[in-house]
């Protein structure tokens, strides 16, 4: 039995359908992420799990029991809020003790558990501090300790890393992963930042307009997006409009606009004559000098239009002879590479016949 089951849940605000017949289940011990652009309904769904909002239709089950009649304070589910929502008039230790006091635990137990929870988030020496004396990352950890101290069945995290700067966010991501593994509690994480979702989650539900577009592991979402939205939202993608000219179990032959014929891996539902896009990740596209030898079937000549030097990699924007623009990624550690390609330099882009994925419109 899954830990949490959301069955056919719908939530409307006036004429807006914020959640549209969503069904999903989350297993115990999972790090599950609701990913989507703002307004996709992910926060509404989280608030319904916490009990701050109720579905107009459908039900939510925790451990097989319907949560409909349970107010937030009676659900074994705690939330880490985006703003942390630490009580400003209480010390760190009293903040962490709060849920234990509400559960009427004896004082000795409270003291021991607060100490342990603060140790888990590496804030042993901050118990006497007040929230305003802490940095953003420290506040974040106090919020985590406070939400985890009673060992809830599930922890809900509402964009908890949104307010942190990039460096700190990366550090907190690593801490979140190890914390989740150590305490073994199911995390349900809401974010609009796809790198965060890919880095942290066991499974991700990609949401748009109140619906789940695709639900899968990070690597499968990235490698096999179900549609254009997912392909575009997760990572970067070259989208080449294409028509199927031939479909076999071994592969597709596509007519890609003015590029001509392109070979692509097989797609289950593709039939000759259908229109769609070939979604191609920049790192699948090789870029080589115009006169270099190559043995790839899909190759096209063009010129470097722009490049972005990121450090570990360089992203090149190559304009092909027919005007199509393709992004190609080149690792700067590539062996034997003597120099960068410059703007306007003639180059060739190429990709394997089994690279990319054909998505029907």
């Amino acid at each position, binding site marked *: 039995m899954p830990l949490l089951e959301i069955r056919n849940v719908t939530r409307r605000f006036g004429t807006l359908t914020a959640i549209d017949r969503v069904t999903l289940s989350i297993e115990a011990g999972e790090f599950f992420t609701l990913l989507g652009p703002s307004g996709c309904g992910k926060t509404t769904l989280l608030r319904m799990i916490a009990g701050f909002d109720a579905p107009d239709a459908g039900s939510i089950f925790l451990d097989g029991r319907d949560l409909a009649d349970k*107010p937030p304070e009676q659900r074994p589910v705690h939330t880490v809020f985006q703003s942390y929502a630490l009580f400003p008039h209480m010390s760190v230790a009293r903040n962490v003790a709060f849920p234990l006091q*509400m559960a009427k635990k004896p004082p000795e137990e409270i003291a021991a558990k607060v100490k342990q929870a603060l140790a888990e988030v590496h804030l042993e020496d901050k118990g006497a501090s007040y929230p305003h004396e802490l940095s953003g990352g420290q506040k974040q950890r106090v919020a985590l300790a406070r939400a985890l101290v009673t060992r809830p069945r599930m922890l809900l995290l509402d964009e908890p890393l949104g307010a942190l700067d990039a460096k700190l966010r990366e550090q907190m991501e690593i801490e979140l992963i190890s914390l989740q593994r150590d305490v073994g509690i199911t995390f349900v994480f809401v974010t609009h930042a796809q790198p965060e979702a890919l880095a942290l989650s066991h499974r991700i539900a990609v949401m748009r307009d109140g619906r789940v577009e695709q639900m899968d592991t990070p690597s499968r979402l990235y490698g096999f997006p179900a549609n254009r939205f997912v392909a575009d939202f997760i990572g970067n993608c070259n989208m080449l409009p294409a028509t199927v000219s031939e479909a076999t179990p071994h592969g597709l032959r596509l007519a890609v606009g003015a590029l001509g014929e392109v070979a692509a891996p097989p797609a289950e539902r593709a039939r000759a004559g259908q229109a769609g896009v070939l979604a191609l990740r920049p790192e699948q596209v090789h870029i080589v000098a115009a006169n270099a030898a190559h043995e790839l079937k899909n190759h096209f000549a063009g010129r470097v239009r722009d490049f972005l030097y990121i450090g570990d990699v360089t992203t090149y924007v190559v304009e092909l002879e027919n005007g199509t623009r393709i992004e190609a990624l080149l690792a700067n550690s590539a062996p034997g590479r003597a120099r960068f390609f410059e703007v306007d330099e003639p180059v060739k882009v190429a990709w394997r016949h089994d690279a990319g994925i054909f998505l029907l419109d």
Partner: protein
Amino acid sequence: MAVPRAERVTKWLIAGPPLAFLLAFFLLPSLIMALASLRYPGEFGGLAPLAARPGEESGLTLENYALFFGDWVYAQIFAKSLVIAALTTFACLVLAYPLALLIARSPKKRRDFMVLLVILPFASNFLVRVYAWMIILGPMDLLFTRFAVIVGMVYVHLPFMILPLYTNLEKHDPTLLDAAQDLGANAWHTFWRVTFPLSLPGVFSGSALVFIPVLGMFAIPELLGGKDDWMVGNMIKEAFLGTRDWPFGSMLSLMLTLAVLAIAGAAALFARRGAPNE
């Protein structure tokens, strides 16, 4: 680091006028009053000339203070005033808090209108409103009692409690209430563990705005109270307008000011220990 000269000049230009106002119309009169409390009353009110009387070295005397500390009756009236002020403050707090909370948690558009309703009574004359209470309490046989005094006091001072409370409660982050509930607190615990402690600055300023004026109030006890409901304010008024003993009245005023300062100081100390620095 030194503050730039221009900035210092600007600071004084801004702070100067109110400072001068307070010096001229608060500190100076207080000093005059303190001095007046040490002088002899004039024959028909006012103060006696400062020239030394025959057989005395100066025109100054501690007679009024001797009188004040020599007779229990003054301390009793002070104590009674403190009790009435405390009861009024408490009643205002209990009545104002739910209303302030209601306004603070109403939709933003409705809040301004509700605040307007709270201050609307100020649009009619203070005495008229107190007389209205005479008409209400009279037939109920409650007029000229301690109860009537407190009812009148509470009625007149309630807005001074509601407004600071509302201003404080309105600023509370609603996510904190969600967080408390999420962590297992019911409505009762959420209020007493989160909302109330966070509203203490509002509670203190509202209490000061009620307690201090009530302590010196004379019109309400005079109109609604009985003969046992004389307060410090009545004594002071009587000294100036009745017996025309200005030095005695000045002494009483000074004692009242000192009492208020002492209580405010104690409350500030208490508040600072209770709440962490911002």
